[in-house]
Structures are given as C-alpha cells and as structure tokens.
C-alpha cells in the first residue's frame, strides 16, 4: 500500500511542494479506491465533477461543496484515508466548539500532528521563544485539538506544559442564555487556578484566549507576575480586536512577545501571526496544506487585497481533505508571503450583527 503514496504528500518539513503537483497528488490519494477515505469515496459519487480530473489548482478547490456540517455525524473512522492501512496512528478525535448544535468531529493523524508541530516549532525558534520552558496553557483541552497541539509544541522544543482546563461550550451557553454573571464567575475560577501556577512555577510561555488574557490583565498582581516570568504569550481560540492587541503589547505586557494563532478544528491547527507588524494582526497559513481566500459573501467572488470579506479555508493533506469551508469570520485580505498559496488574512473578527433601526420612544 505504501507504494501508492506520492512523495509530494510526504515531503519533509521545510520543503514546500509544487502547488499543482501537490493538488494532483492529493486528489489521486483522496479519490482513489485504494487510498481514499470511505467518506470521500462515497461522497464523490454525488459530486458533479471528478476531483481527479477537474481539480488541478488551488482555485479549483472551490468546486467542492462545503462538507463540514456532515462531520457532525460521519463515523470518524470513515474519514481516515484507506491508504494509511489497517492500523492508522490516530492521535485522537477532536471536535469543533459546538456552538451551533452537535459538534463536528475530525481524526488527528500522527503524521499531520508531527508536520504541523514542527512547522510551529520552526517559527518559534526564529522568533527566539524560550526553549525548554515550562508552559502554562489556560485553554480548552479534552475534545478540543488545541490542548494536544500545545503539549506537542512544548515537548518538541524541550519543554513541558501545565494546564488549566476550561469548557468553552459552557461559557458560550451561559452567554447565550444571558447568564453573564455565571460566565464571569467561571472565568474568575479559571484565572484563580492560573494564578497558583504563575505564582509557584517558573512559567516561560503562557497560552490562553483573548478574553482570559483580558480577565488576567484586570489583576495588577497577575500582570506583574506575567511580566516578571513569561517571555512569550500565545493567544488564540477567539478574536482579538486591534485596539486590545495594541494595549496588550504596549501598555500591559510591553516586555513580552505576544503573538496570535488563528486556528480552527476544520484545518486541524492554526495559522501564525506575522512578526513585526504593529498596526494589523496578519495571519499566515501553513502553505500549501492550509490555504485561505477572502470572499464577498454576497457574490462569492474574492475581494481585493486590503478589502474585508468572509474567510474560506481549505485543508489539504495526506491525512485529510476539508476544502472550501466558509467560516463565520470576517477578515482583511492580505497579499501572501513569497511562495505561499492563497492569501493571508488580517484583523479577523466575527461577522457583525446590526441593530435594527426601529423607533424607540422617549427622548434619549
């Protein structure tokens, strides 16, 4: 079976495959009866095109329907390409946030985890993040992929992780039901646990979400602890507006490297914030495995560079195929780095909701 693996799908980290060769190899892999996953082989029968024949470039990925909603009930085993043989190394099954009904599930295969983590380790080295550090991750673990990836990133760079776990679904539920006080108490409970670790341990890297970072920044004592000990803060899992980012970088944690990851379970990882840009938070994807485009949701057409639109993500690797996924995020389309496929994105924010313009009585 291994003979069927096209080497272009298995290049070592640091070598970027030729885009068209890569797409062709990926289509052959995912849609050949010998190597494709049961899910995609079955799904291909309902497509009005032949992926192996018609999908030749990254732009052609737009031919695919957005299938992520089907991942709520597909047996996870059916998502693993047959080419991995009878005992694939599945690190775990991970789920989306689960804000709208049942969560979407994906299997994390060991080769993708290794590939993604060595890419992350590469840029952390370039930026001089501490090696061998004690990390503190105040993030969702359990069904969420982030905890697993952070453990691997720390280990890969000679470090180890303390966790404070949290359940984002509970928080979202509280907020949706208007129980903001309960969400607030929960955040306080999480931060109190983090305080013990920050107090007693020599934490070099802090991983958390923007709302928790904001919550942490309320305590002068915690801010001091972080500024004393932590050399890099990695944030992700939620949006951070540019003004908050600016305050955190310049006023709250001026001596700490602060950088964001824009992640999604549907790309089995995250993109990294481009270094050295003050006025915008630009995310670059792990090309060519993760690619973005930014479209006008009305017309479906790509917006111009510098314009805002809705983010479309593609995940294409040996371990899986999740193309043409329209996320509920808005972002500015940014020109890619040299050699990168698709676009980068900046200043990601949720799709806004508008107040209605009904007349409210009264003079105020």
């Amino acid at each position, binding site marked *: 079976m291994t003979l069927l693996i096209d080497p272009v799908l298995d290049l070592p980290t640091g070598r970027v495959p030729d885009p068209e060769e890569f797409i062709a190899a990926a289509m052959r892999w995912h849609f050949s009866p010998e190597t494709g996953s049961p899910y995609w082989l079955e799904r291909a029968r309902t497509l009005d095109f032949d992926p192996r024949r018609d999908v030749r470039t990254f732009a052609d990925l737009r031919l695919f329907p957005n299938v992520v909603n089907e991942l709520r009930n597909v047996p996870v085993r059916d998502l693993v390409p047959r080419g991995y043989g009878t005992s694939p190394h599945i690190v775990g099954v991970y789920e989306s946030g689960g804000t709208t009904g049942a969560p979407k599930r994906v299997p994390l295969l060991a080769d993708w985890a290794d590939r993604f983590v060595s890419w992350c380790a590469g840029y952390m080295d370039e930026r001089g993040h501490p090696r061998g550090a004690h990390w503190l991750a105040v993030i969702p673990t359990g069904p969420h992929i982030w905890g697993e990836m952070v453990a691997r990133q720390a280990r890969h760079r000679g470090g180890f992780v303390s966790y404070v776990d949290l359940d984002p679904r509970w928080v979202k539920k509280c907020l949706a039901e208007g129980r*903001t006080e309960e969400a607030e108490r929960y955040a306080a409970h999480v931060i109190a646990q983090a305080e013990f670790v920050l107090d007693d341990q020599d934490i070099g890297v802090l991983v958390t979400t923007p709302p928790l970072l*904001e919550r942490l*920044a*309320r305590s*002068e004592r915690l801010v001091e602890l972080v500024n004393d000990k932590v050399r890099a803060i990695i944030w992700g899992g939620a949006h951070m*507006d*540019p*003004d*908050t980012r*600016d*305050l*955190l970088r310049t*006023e*709250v944690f001026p001596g700490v490297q602060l950088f964001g990851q824009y992640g999604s379970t549907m790309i089995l990882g995250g993109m990294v914030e481009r270094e050295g840009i003050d*006025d915008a938070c630009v995310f670059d994807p792990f090309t060519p495995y993760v690619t973005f485009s930014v479209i006008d949701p009305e017309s479906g057409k790509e917006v111009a560079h510098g314009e805002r639109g809705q983010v479309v993500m593609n995940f294409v690797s040996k371990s899986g195929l999740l193309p043409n996924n329209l996320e509920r995020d808005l972002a500015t389309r940014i020109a890619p780095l040299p050699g990168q496929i698709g676009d980068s994105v900046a200043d990601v924010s949720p799709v806004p909701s508008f*107040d209605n*313009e009904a*007349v*409210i*009585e*009264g*003079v*105020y």
Partner: protein
Amino acid sequence: MEAGHGGPIPLDALGPRGPHRTRNRQTVPDVTGRPVTELSLVPRLFVQRSLAALRKAPPLDADELSAVLARAGEAFATGTVGGVPADAYRHRVSRVTGLPVSVVHKATEHIAHCAREVFHTVECARPRGTVSHWQDPLTRRGTGIWTRRGDVFAVHAAGNHPGVHALWLEALALGYRTAVRPSSREPFTPQRLVTALRESGIGDDRLVLLPTDHTVADDIISGADLSLVYGGDPVVTKYRSDPTVLTQGPGRSKILLCAGEDPAAALETIVASVSEEAGTACVNTTAVLVDGDPAPVAEALAERLAALPSLPPEDDKAVLPVHPVAGARALEKHLLEHTGGGTVRLGGDGIVEELGDGSAVLRPAVIQLDRADAPQAGMELPFPCVWVAPWAPADGIAPLTNTLVLTVFGGDEALIERLIAEPSIRNIHLGDRPTHWMAPGVPHDGHLAEFLMRSKGIVRSATAGPWREG
C-alpha cells in the same frame, strides 16, 4: 479645529494617561449625513484599565474641587477648550443633534451655572442629621456623617440634549472618580466638559471619557460602584433590579388644567412647556389634561405651535429640532400610525419639512384624545408633540402618574396632597411654572446625591485619637 474641507476630525477617548485614539471608530454625522467626527471606541481592556486607575486615584479635597468645577464650567461655556472656541462647539452640537443653536447656547450656560452652584446643590441634598466632616464638633455627641457609597461613578450619557451633562458634576463634587460614556449621537458636550475639567486641574485619573460600542457598555457599569444610565423603557426595565444603577427614562411630563382655570391664561406656559428646548427634553410636556372641553385648548395650542418657523438648526432664530430626512420620516410614520382615534389638530398632513440638504425640520403635532387614560398620552417623542385629553376628578389621578414633572393649574388641596404623595410623580409645579422650569438645588428626579451618598453613624470621645479638635 473645525472640520473645514478635510475629512472628519477625530474625537479621542480621554483615558487616565491622556487622549487615546483607537482604530475602531464610529463616524458621527451631522443632520445631513455628512461625517463630522470619528469617535474612538475603546475596547473592554481600556475600560477595565481606566476604571482601575480611577479607583486608585485619591479624591481631590472639596476646596480644590470647588475651584476646579467653577473654572471648568466657565471655560466650557465661554472659553476655548481643547483648542475649540465656544461658538464653534455650539455650532457643531447644533449641526449634529439638530437642536436649535439657541437651545445649545442656553444649555451650555446652564451647565456653567450648575458647575458654579454644584456644592450648594449637593448640600441641599444632605440630610439635616448629618455633618460633612468627622472633625465637626457635633460628632462628639454622636451624629450622622454623610459619606459616599462608593468611589467610582459611571454615566451612560444621553445625546438628546447637552443639559443632561450638568447632573454628573454633582458626583464629581461629592468626590466620586467618574467615567462618562458619551452617546455616539452627540459626544462633543461630554468631551468638551471633561476636557475643560482636565484643563482646570481635575486630574486625568479622576475623570475619563470612555466611548464604547454597546458590547462593552455594560462593562463600564459592572466595573463602577454606582452608575447613572439614560434610556428608553427597555433600558429602565433592564436595570430595574440592579441597586447600583439609577436610570433616567422617559419623562412623560404633563400639565393638568383644573376646572375653573382660564385656558387662555395658561396657554403661554403650556406652549413653552411643549416647545421650549425644541421639545427634546424629558421635562417637555407630553400630555395636557383638561378638566372640561379639551378642544379649545388643543386648537389654541395648535394655532400657536403652527406659527413656529422651520429653520436650519444653526440659525439663531431656529426653535424646532432637525433630523436626517430618513429618521424624520420614520418618526412621522410612527406618530401617524399611533394617533388611534385621536383628532389631529396639528401635524395631520405630516410633521416633516425638508430643508433640501438631506435634513428635515420636525414640526409640532397636537393630537386631541377622547379620554384621559388613552395610552397615546404616554408617547414621548423628540419634538414638540403633545396629546390633549379630557380629565375629570372621577378619572382619579392614574392618568397623571408616571410623570417626571407635573404642572397643575388650580386644583383643590385634597388633589394637590394626593399628587404630592404619589411616588411616580417626581416633581410638582403649582400654577404658572412650565414643566421645564429647573433650578440648582431643586431636585430633578430626586437628588442624585440621594443615590450616591449614605449617612454613617459617628461618635467620638473627648480622648479619641492623637488629633486635636478641628
């Protein structure tokens, strides 16, 4: 400092470290839709840090505060503040809110007057059984001392009328460190007043201006000890059960003309109550109740109000409010859909007079209703719009309740006693006093200090402490 031919000028947040410009900005247009300013909206983190700074700052002592407030009020009304002369400021407020510039002028003088009088005003609210300072000799035999219920006070301000900003000066005078969240409709007045206070030496960490979008608005309230929030009925309902929030809702001010009173003699006061302040204030009369035939009153009112001119807001002779055409049309539609079975004495053909530049004057409306408890009589709209209904003693005082200001012409003692005892009527004016009459020291919706202060018991023995008698 006027926008001139360039783009809109930015209006910064005023944080504990000085002015702060954000990337997230909201365009504030004038009544024609032309952008006038870009308001910097601060994120939650900035709110948190600002409130923390307020909490840390010690209050100024009363003498210093008194001087700062008086100086700032004067500069606000007549001087150049943040580089903006008073007339440029008034013009801008007038163009953005559509309030007649003369109303803005009066409001700025009112604010300066309130700033001068603020210590007298809060002193009017102090319970007689309390002293202000613990070294007062009365504390030796035991008394009350008037103290703050907290340190940090927040205001969600309204943008309908600059005059609302006179009120929070009382919190400053009582030593509260204060955060003002301006209305995005009219951020200029609080920005100017905060700037004037800062230029007069209040201290940047004692008074901040925090424009935010609605997602962060509640963080200001939850981070402050006590808050004052302006809004419509939904806002009042939202905070009803929160003891740290005082709401200022619709005024639904009314005039009662009792039997035997001459409507002609009261007409001047009624016209003024409906139309002064361009009908935009909570103290403007929303309903007139007449013991007798309401028709002659409604007709006379309609005749007088019909004569008011339609002018652009910055015209010195303007007296009516101006809105963008779309907003004006929406209000017109809302009004005409809700007149019920009323007889429209003025405004039946519409209340919108377009000025041709994208803005429109909201002209007065007079609607006569056939019963005292018609629900429309409680509909308060931001222009001179008045409901005239019959009332008889048999109707009881229910139609007169839920009222910020009630002016009563005539009436027997029993009626007046009942109205004074009624908790939902917050001010009573007897006789020829319009509903918009106000004076420092006279409560507006209770004294703000009733909400901000409490009496604490204090007694000291002759041997107490190392200090000497003060």
